[in-house]
């Protein structure tokens, strides 16, 4: 799935995959302009409304979307700020809510072209759960160059759409009916659920199922460090399941 060494680039659903940076860039932008744009417009409009109600300025709300770029952490941030928590407590809570970016960056970066640290920091800063899941899909490009282009195009479209949606939500906060506002918060969970269902391979499936099933009690009892523990448990389960399937195959 990740190796770019094969000479024959496989077709996916009858479409030839891009093999160079420019082709990947175009494919990534196209992919982002579909459903991800719709979901981002929905969920970041909800976030914009939330920041308006908690007393952030419009510029700060947009800046937080572009530079924090991790919605669960952003929501934790604005809710804790509204509750009057101090800066250090907020930083720790946001860090815990957004720690997923650590394993995600580790597993994404080696599949992208170039080892330049600055390029990789930029890609990691642009990465989101959606961009990570899209690049991991079977339909994503396979060569490292095309993957770099794909992730760049995909994320740049996503950040632009999300920044715009935050501003729209901020300015229109008062006019939003309550059920619609709630649905905008739900859309993100529904999208993540379907993206995880769409993953291939036994190891990933075991990791996802373990993550959900074990994640419920773990996060109930350890609300702060729950996601880290879930990652350790589910990642190891997926790794072991993948290892046994490899042995059986050979």
């Amino acid at each position: 799935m990740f190796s770019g060494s094969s000479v024959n680039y496989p077709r996916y659903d009858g479409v030839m995959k891009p093999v160079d940076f420019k082709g990947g860039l175009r494919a990534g932008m196209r992919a982002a302009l579909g459903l991800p744009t719709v979901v981002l417009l929905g969920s970041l409009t909800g976030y914009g409304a939330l920041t308006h109600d908690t007393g952030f300025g419009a510029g700060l709300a947009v800046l937080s979307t572009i530079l924090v770029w991790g919605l669960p952490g952003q929501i934790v941030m604005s809710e804790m700020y509204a509750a009057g928590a101090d800066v250090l407590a907020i930083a720790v809570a946001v860090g815990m809510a957004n720690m997923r970016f650590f394993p995600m960056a580790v597993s994404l970066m080696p599949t992208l072209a170039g080892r330049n640290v600055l390029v990789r920091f930029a890609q990691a800063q642009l990465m989101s759960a959606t961009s990570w899941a899209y690049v991991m899909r079977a339909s994503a490009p396979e060569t490292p160059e095309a993957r770099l282009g794909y992730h760049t195009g995909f994320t740049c479209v996503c950040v632009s759409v999300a920044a715009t949606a935050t501003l729209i939500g901020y300015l229109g906060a008062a006019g939003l009916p309550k059920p619609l506002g709630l649905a905008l918060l739900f859309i993100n969970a529904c999208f993540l659920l379907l993206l995880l269902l769409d993953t291939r391979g036994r190891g990933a499936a075991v990791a996802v199922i373990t993550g959900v099933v074990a994640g419920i009690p773990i996060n109930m009892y350890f609300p702060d460090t729950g996601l880290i523990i879930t990652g350790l448990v589910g990642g190891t389960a997926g790794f072991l399941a993948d290892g046994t399937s490899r042995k059986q195959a050979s």
Partner: protein
Amino acid sequence: MSVFGPESAALVVAAAIAATAFWRGLGVFLAQRLDTKGAVFRWFSFASFAVLAGLLARLLILPSGELATVGLEVRLGAAVIGVAAFYLSRRNLLIGVASGTLSFALAAGALG
């Protein structure tokens, strides 16, 4: 009150940016030493899936804030409808997300 809001808000956003960028940077740092064939790299791929699944469990089953005001049966019911629509439409993400979110909005409107 300016376009950025009170000073305390700016400080909080700066802290949130730093706290998130820390994990991204740590990931890049470790990735410099890995290749895609190794066991460590594979473990981290599965750990990412598990963390995202854990995040999903939190969002759907243990939400905080506004989402918690909607009953568990509405959240799970809407999720099941979204999954059913996804598979009935031969894995069409748009149809799945639209069905799940729409049923959530309708149920939240009718029950709230």
